[in-house]
């Protein structure tokens, strides 16, 4: 082979604009991590080491890890069982259950926590946290597992039965295997949420890394201690992320033949029908009924003189404004990354996309701390507790969610259509505007809803970054709740739920319509 053969003649032009935009997004996303490291560095290595290696850290570690493990396992169990009942059996009223089982996702964890602890003082500490968090986050396992059951090849179960396996063995060796990736993905989300949760634990009086970091930062103003604990928390999250990635790569799910949708026959519940209905009713009652019922009770109980409609309206407006702008920003940020990693081959592009997943390991509290540190230290306090900084924090925090929606849509839109548009004489910007954007519009809408929903129900970062003198629904709820003014807090909780339910139903529909390939758990 001659040298000339090795040298490519002319290359198809590289996507420079896309590359520049994506790099900028990746840099913004990684800023909090950089700030955290700078913050820790500023405190001095010796100080940080001293703050990390003390008995308090061990206590926090034990509290955090045991809760994470127990709740993740319970969620895996409940989420998978519910998904199997709804998707694979002849359970009566499946369509209604499919919606009801997911709705608790729209209720913020701190509202569930408030609902339970305000009606019974016994819901507290470790047991209280297990109860509340399991009920609040099991849908994170239910959703991907239900999707995987829906899309799994029913032929495999039938073949297993014809090969002489009983129902139990088939469930164990075939059905569960099919859902394994989805279960793992759901567990990852649950674990990350638990590591990042603050409000619910504060209410229940259960001490974890986040509650301690929050206290150190907001009450004691001890920045070195807060950043030292943040480092440990981020390390824990990275560990969870890494573990899930390894487990996921250890297995490959392949489906032979075309992805033709064939609905397998549903399992007959028979005499188990009533108990199954009972279990689901109990689950919905505990996860949905208690928080909503309790909030409604407190609201009706309160003397109406306290209720100021004006502050509720104003808080709603601010919540919607910040969440809406953040959702738009996050979706816009996800677009170049998704286009680059799906439309263009190249390991550098993939690496760029992967780097954005590091954000998953950054709890909202840590992002908020890092950004406020940045605002005070480098922006001369100019941005500190300003609306733009809060919006940016939301956009970074929920970027992975936006990417899920946008990525799924871009992957669904055939690249041939863009090529044809070009061969019909259209330049790249025109192709983007006339073909790509209309095709990925549903994904952009889903990404927007996902981020909006999450931002509306966000509490921790909001408490730290909310502009001075402004209240959002979450912060106002929190203020009243802290003062034990349950009657005044309740309307804000109900407003959050009301706002969050709509996008969550829209989302359910979007992800239902995607084939399984496009929605592996978090990517």
């Amino acid at each position, binding site marked *: 082979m001659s040298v000339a053969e090795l040298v490519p003649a*002319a290359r*198809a032009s590289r996507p420079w604009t896309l590359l520049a935009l994506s790099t900028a997004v990746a840099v913004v996303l990684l800023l909090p991590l950089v700030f955290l490291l700078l913050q820790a560095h500023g405190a001095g290595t010796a100080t940080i080491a001293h703050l990390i290696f003390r008995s308090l850290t061990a206590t926090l570690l034990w509290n955090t890890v045991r809760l994470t493990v127990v709740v993740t396992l319970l969620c895996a169990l409940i989420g998978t069982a519910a998904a199997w009942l709804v998707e694979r059996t002849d359970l009566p009223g499946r369509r209604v259950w499919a919606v009801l089982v997911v709705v608790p996702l729209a209720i913020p964890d701190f509202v569930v926590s408030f609902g339970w602890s305000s009606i019974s003082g016994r819901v507290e500490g470790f047991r209280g946290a297990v109860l509340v968090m399991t009920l609040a986050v099991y849908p994170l396992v239910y959703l991907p597992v239900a999707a995987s059951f829906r899309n799994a090849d029913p032929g495999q179960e039938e073949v297993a039965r014809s090969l002489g396996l009983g129902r139990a063995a088939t469930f164990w060796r075939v059905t569960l295997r099919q859902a394994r990736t989805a279960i793992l993905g759901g567990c990852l989300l649950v674990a990350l949420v638990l590591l990042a949760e603050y409000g619910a634990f504060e209410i229940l009086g259960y001490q974890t890394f986040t509650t301690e970091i929050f206290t150190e930062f907001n009450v004691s103003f001890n920045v070195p201690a807060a950043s030292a604990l943040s480092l440990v928390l981020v390390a824990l999250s990275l560990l969870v992320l890494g573990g899930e990635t390894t487990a996921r790569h250890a297995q490959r799910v392949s489906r032979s033949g075309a992805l033709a949708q064939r609905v397998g026959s549903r399992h007959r519940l028979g005499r188990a029908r009533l108990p199954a209905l009972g279990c689901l009713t109990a689950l919905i009652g505990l996860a949905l009924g208690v928080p909503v019922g309790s909030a409604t009770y407190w609201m009706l109980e309160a003397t109406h003189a306290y209720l100021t409609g004006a502050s509720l309206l104003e808080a709603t407006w601010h919540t919607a404004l910040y969440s809406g702008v953040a959702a738009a920003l996050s979706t816009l940020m996800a677009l170049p990354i998704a286009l680059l990693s799906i439309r263009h081959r190249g390991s550098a592009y993939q690496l760029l996309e992967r780097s954005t997943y590091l954000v998953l390991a950054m709890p909202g509290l840590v992002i908020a701390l890092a950004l406020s540190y940045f605002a005070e230290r480098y922006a001369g306090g100019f941005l500190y507790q300003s609306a733009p900084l809060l919006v940016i924090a939301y956009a970074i925090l929920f970027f992975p969610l936006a990417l899920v929606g946008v990525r799924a849509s871009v992957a669904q839109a055939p690249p041939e259509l863009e090529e044809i548009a070009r*061969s*019909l*004489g259209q330049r790249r910007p025109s192709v983007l505007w006339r073909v790509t954007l209309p095709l990925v519009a549903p994904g952009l809408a889903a990404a927007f809803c996902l981020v909006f929903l999450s931002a509306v129900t966000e509490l921790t970062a909001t408490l730290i970054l909310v502009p001075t003198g402004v209240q959002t629904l979450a912060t106002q709820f929190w203020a009243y709740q802290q003062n034990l003014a349950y009657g005044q807090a309740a309307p804000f909780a109900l407003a959050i739920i009301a706002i969050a339910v709509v996008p969550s139903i829209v989302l359910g529909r979007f992800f239902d319509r995607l084939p399984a390939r496009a929605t592996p758990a978090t990517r």
Partner: protein
Amino acid sequence: MSELVLTDLHKRFGGQAVLSGLDLTVPAGSFTALLGASGVGKTTLLRLLAGFETPDRGTIAIGGRTVDGEGTHVRPEQRQIGYVPQEGSLFPHLSVAANVAFGLPRPARRHGVEDLLERVGLEGLGGRYPHQLSGGQQQRVALARALAVRPEVVLLDEPFASLDANLREGVREEARRILRAAGTTTLLVTHQQDEALAIADLVAVLRDGTIVQHAAPHELYAEPVDGELACFVGDANLIDGVIDDSVVDTPLGKLPARWHGEPVGAQCQVTVLIRPEQIAVHTPNGDAAPLGRVIRCGYHGHDTVLHVQLTPDNEGPVVIVRTLGQATVAPGERVSLTAHGSVLVWPRRAAR
């Protein structure tokens, strides 16, 4: 009308050579089929022509204008090439009319569309959306969309593969008529030899990264360059023989022979191509005709394909015989065989 000239094209993907020194000239205004097995690089070639990929080496010229090579790469949008992919790939968010008008400048989008739809026999369907059309209609819209920008060259990537068999032939003939009327140079990619032979003026066969033969369909079938190609463009019996002047001695008797290209020599070992339809079977009646035993009998309705093992049993070569209609023999029966017509011979090498 533009001639399409490809010279010494090379393309590798991840270290794997897909095209290696491909030369091909598609005459202006012709309908040429590019035939090749699956995964042989046919689509890569089309994508290079359309400008979606860049060749590692070599040149592509369309109507005398170099679009690739010599340091240039003309972008897809500046090539004036119509591209019709396998599934039609209509824009799902646009109506039929908007699909057809997609490549036209804004003022021209209104008129002309109805005319184009009429040309492909879809008048009045402009308001529909792609999902409301049948597979054949979608393909015709894709064709109209490609023709709307008056391309010099139209590339079709297995456009009929996804259609039902009974629909395929009609749509194929229709497409051929439309493209003829438009007077474009057309290159159709397919892996089905019957489609290539039926539709094209010329067939170029792609194998091992180059064009092994480029000829009219009947010539390709009758005079393939080697045994592998003979088998690729249809069923073929490749049997050994010894040639003496213009007669070849085979297990099926002495047959008139013609060389592919120049005769190589007399009294030498050759490979002989006998098409299944050149052989007839009948009940042995004691004459000198070679004998064989039927080992397989495949009934296809319009014809029957027999596999006959020549004597001695279990050792002689197996030949494929095609007879019209239903065969009167059953597996295990003994038959005698006669071949008719002249046969093609190549010097015997490692020709399978």
